[in-house]
């Protein structure tokens, strides 16, 4: 029962956070001078009735929320408006039916653009995350086990160095090197591949993924290594490791059966907290490698001042990170018997 309540509480917080992000997103794009329609409305070349038409089309003729016609806090508007007929309510309602407006640039629905790009980002982040966790954890184990030896010191140095590399710059350098050595120069697939058999297409995509994934792995493995190292060092100095040693278990058995699970637990939380940073990495990597993902969408939207896409991409990323955090949180609860009891 306790566990069920715990689950509900956590889901409740995630929903509340998402609500906060939705409200933030709504007001950010209305307070700051980036409202798609308003930007258009201010175009001096437009005739007055055309402006009015745009305002109606984007719902800008409606009050923002109850009591406020505009976002001018001094100017109190009509409080007797039907709350269902405000900009905010329409915005939220549209979100629920998956409607996020139209791209300023291509005039396609933002939802369509983002959904196809979401999977590309998931593919890239997934591959990079798995690789960096595996490599980071392995090196972390090695460094902790061989603490205060030259193995440990070199692993530490390498991870501090890669941690300090700006993701986009590492990407640029790898791309510079790769393009001279026969790697694809960017994108997700070679043009004209759609007519080829599936296996060839997948091979092509895999080839395009090599450099972005290496960038991703290098950037994030350092942090995982540092965390795994210190977490394992903590565990290995616990009394129960001495017990395990006194039981006559070999070093390998102790690491496998007594240390790793305990040391991996904090890592689950870190991976979750890291997802926010991970997205930051994805924006940079996708921008450098022209990878058609959400991060790339943000890059393009910024450069084209395509605000509807920017707004949608931000919302989608934030919701995805919050959801992933929730999942990691619940996984942790499931993995650690001590949390279950609380």
């Amino acid at each position, binding site marked *: 029962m306790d566990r069920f309540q715990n689950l509900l509480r956590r889901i409740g917080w995630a929903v509340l956070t998402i609500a906060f992000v939705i409200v933030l997103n709504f007001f*950010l794009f209305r307070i700051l001078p980036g409202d798609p329609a308003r930007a258009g409305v201010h175009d001096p070349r437009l005739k007055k009735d055309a402006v009015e038409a745009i305002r109606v089309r984007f719902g800008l003729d409606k009050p923002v929320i109850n009591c406020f016609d505009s976002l001018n806090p001094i100017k109190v508007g009509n409080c007797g408006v039907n709350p269902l007929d405000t900009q905010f309510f329409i915005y939220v309602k549209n979100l629920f039916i998956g409607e996020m407006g139209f791209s300023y640039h291509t005039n396609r629905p933002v939802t369509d653009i983002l959904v196809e790009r979401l999977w590309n980002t998931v593919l890239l982040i997934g591959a990079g995350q798995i690789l960096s966790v595996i490599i980071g954890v392995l090196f972390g184990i090695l460094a902790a086990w061989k603490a205060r030896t030259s193995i440990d010191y070199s692993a530490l140095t390498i991870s501090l160095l890669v941690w300090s590399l700006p993701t986009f710059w590492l990407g640029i350098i790898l791309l510079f090197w790769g393009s001279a050595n026969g790697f694809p120069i960017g994108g997700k697939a070679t043009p004209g591949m759609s007519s080829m058999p599936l296996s060839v297409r997948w091979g092509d995509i895999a080839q395009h993924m090599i450099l972005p994934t290496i960038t991703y792995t290098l950037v994030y493995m350092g942090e995982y290594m540092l965390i795994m190292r210190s977490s394992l060092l903590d565990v290995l100095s616990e009394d129960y490791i001495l017990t395990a040693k006194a039981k*006559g278990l*070999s070093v390998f058995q102790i690491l496998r059966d007594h240390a790793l699970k305990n040391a991996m*637990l904090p890592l689950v939380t870190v991976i979750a907290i890291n997802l926010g940073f991970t997205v930051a990495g994805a924006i940079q990597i996708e921008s450098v490698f022209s990878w058609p993902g959400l991060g790339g969408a943000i890059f393009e939207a910024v450069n084209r001042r395509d605000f509807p896409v920017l707004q949608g991409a931000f919302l989608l990323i934030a919701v995805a990170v919050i959801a992933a955090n929730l999942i990691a949180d619940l996984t942790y609860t499931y993995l650690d018997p001590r949390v279950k009891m609380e």
Partner: protein
Amino acid sequence: MTELALKTAAPPASSYMLDFWRKLNKNRMGLVGLGMLVVITLVAIFAPAISPYDPSSTSGVGASDIYQPPSAEHLFGTDDAGTDVFTNFIYGSRVSLTVGFFAAFISIAVGGALGIIAGFFGGRWENFIMRLTDVMLVIPDLPLIVVIVALTKPGLLNIIFVIGLIGWTTTARVVRSQTLAVKSRKFVLRARAIGAGRGHIIWRHILPLVMPILVVQAVLVVSLAVLNESTLAFLGLSDPTKVSWGQMLNYAFGRGAMSTGAWWALVAPGFGIVWVVLGLTLLGQGLEQVLNPRLDTHHLMPGRPNVKKEAEVRSDNAKLVLEVRNLSVDYISEGKPPAHAIENVGFTLKQGELLGLVGESGCGKTTLMLGLLRLLPQAGQVVNGSVFFGGKDLTMLSEEEMNTIRWSGISIIFQGAMNALNPVRTVSDQIGEAITKHMPSFPKEKLQGRITELLDLVGIASDHKDSFPHQYSGGMRQRAMIAMALACNPQVVIADEPTTALDVMVQAQILELLSELRRKLGLAVIFVTHDLGVVAEMCDRVLVMYGGVTAEYANVDTVYNDARHPYTQELLKAFPDLTKPKKKLSSIPGYPPRLDALPPGCRFAPRCPAAFERCQIEQPAIHAVAGDSNHVASCHLVEATK
């Protein structure tokens, strides 16, 4: 991170930072980082003097000046507009450092203030601030920064404020927990008790103790701000009037440096960012090490090899299960002479015998036990002596051979089973593990039955078998530990203060259990304790240790009625005797000697009521007491009576 290594009393406000600085001076990693930052800061300040060209002199450049490779004229070549990359590199440091430091200042000020408020005032404020922090923490930083900067104008001030106002969350968390830890310190409580104002307490008492952690946090926040700024600039969101490293990369990457092969335009600005961030990272690591010094040692580090010696022949007494002869253990730390933790301690153990090992804390009892099982921490080394068990000298075995003897031959119950059991594995699992390790042929289907039987032996019902250690009470855990120690039918069980930290009733139960098991299973037990009452009740023989040496070793009756070593006599005086209720109890003044400052003569001499001149200069050997072949003591007085 929560607990600082600073535990002094009332603080003069500046002394913490001074102390901090002094320690940092000894940290190589931190100093290298600091040096790197000083260099780049000087470069930024003296940019006009260092750079060969004016940063704004882009006009009047011909097409032939674009993307020129490095030369004497242009040290780092030229970029897409024909300007000198070296000049831009120098000036670029200004933007990075400005944004980094000012944004971090905002983050630290906001986060620090919120953290202190939450930690100090608690209640509704804390609730609200921490909830807000939780929410902000899961919203991805960079996308939010990008969105806000893209919507507003990407001016320098704008960027500083946006990065600064979004990056405070971790600081608030860290500062809050530190404030909570500091708040309950004695001098803060005292200041509150004498009615000091809240502002005064925060300013004079809390802030100085939060400061070091704030400094570490600041270094981290600066590096994140620098990375965020350069990423923004690379994405095209930078002040167009100010050249920055990220902006240089944006231009070079977007305007053909890749296709023209102009690596210099790409490498130089990236190098600048790496230099700053690496400098900050090293400094941060150094500060962290100063604040939370950790030894980085653990139980799996290879121990020091035992000092080589000739194989000894064990004595020919077939009844002896265990014979420890002249065992000496040193603790070795770099730059110091080895500390003699155990010197020439010996004892024997017959089948079914219960040996009591007594002495104050710090007298080497646990070290002796770990030494004979070869479980010493990395600094420990067996420098002399032998341990005979089952016809073998344990000090001569390889680690693999030793592993077969541990637990199946000699098992150990550690003091404080609280942490001696793995918290994430069930009790039955941990008991079963020992059985499968040492009895590979044990039939699998009988394993659970055997575990139930063992737990039954120590009085734990089988329905608690598959529970986790934290679901047990302290006494149950200790009993589970005993069950585990018995799992492989060992000949010797070492019980290292098995009842400390348990309440008296449970203590009695555990002790009762141990002596019953000894009778039932014919175990030989070494019982480490400071409780002389328990020893009198249970043991056959007693080994009294003091300062790492044998003080006295005799049958239990002899020790109680005819103790010869002054230390034993003093210990007995400090212990209530029910048969002589009028007897006055007395304690021994002073403490056992520190290992790094052992007295030159007898180790007990400084506290000994009977010490005479010889005791101060000469360490007594172990002498047999006349008339009792089983009684030895290391005291010059004993020698005299011979």
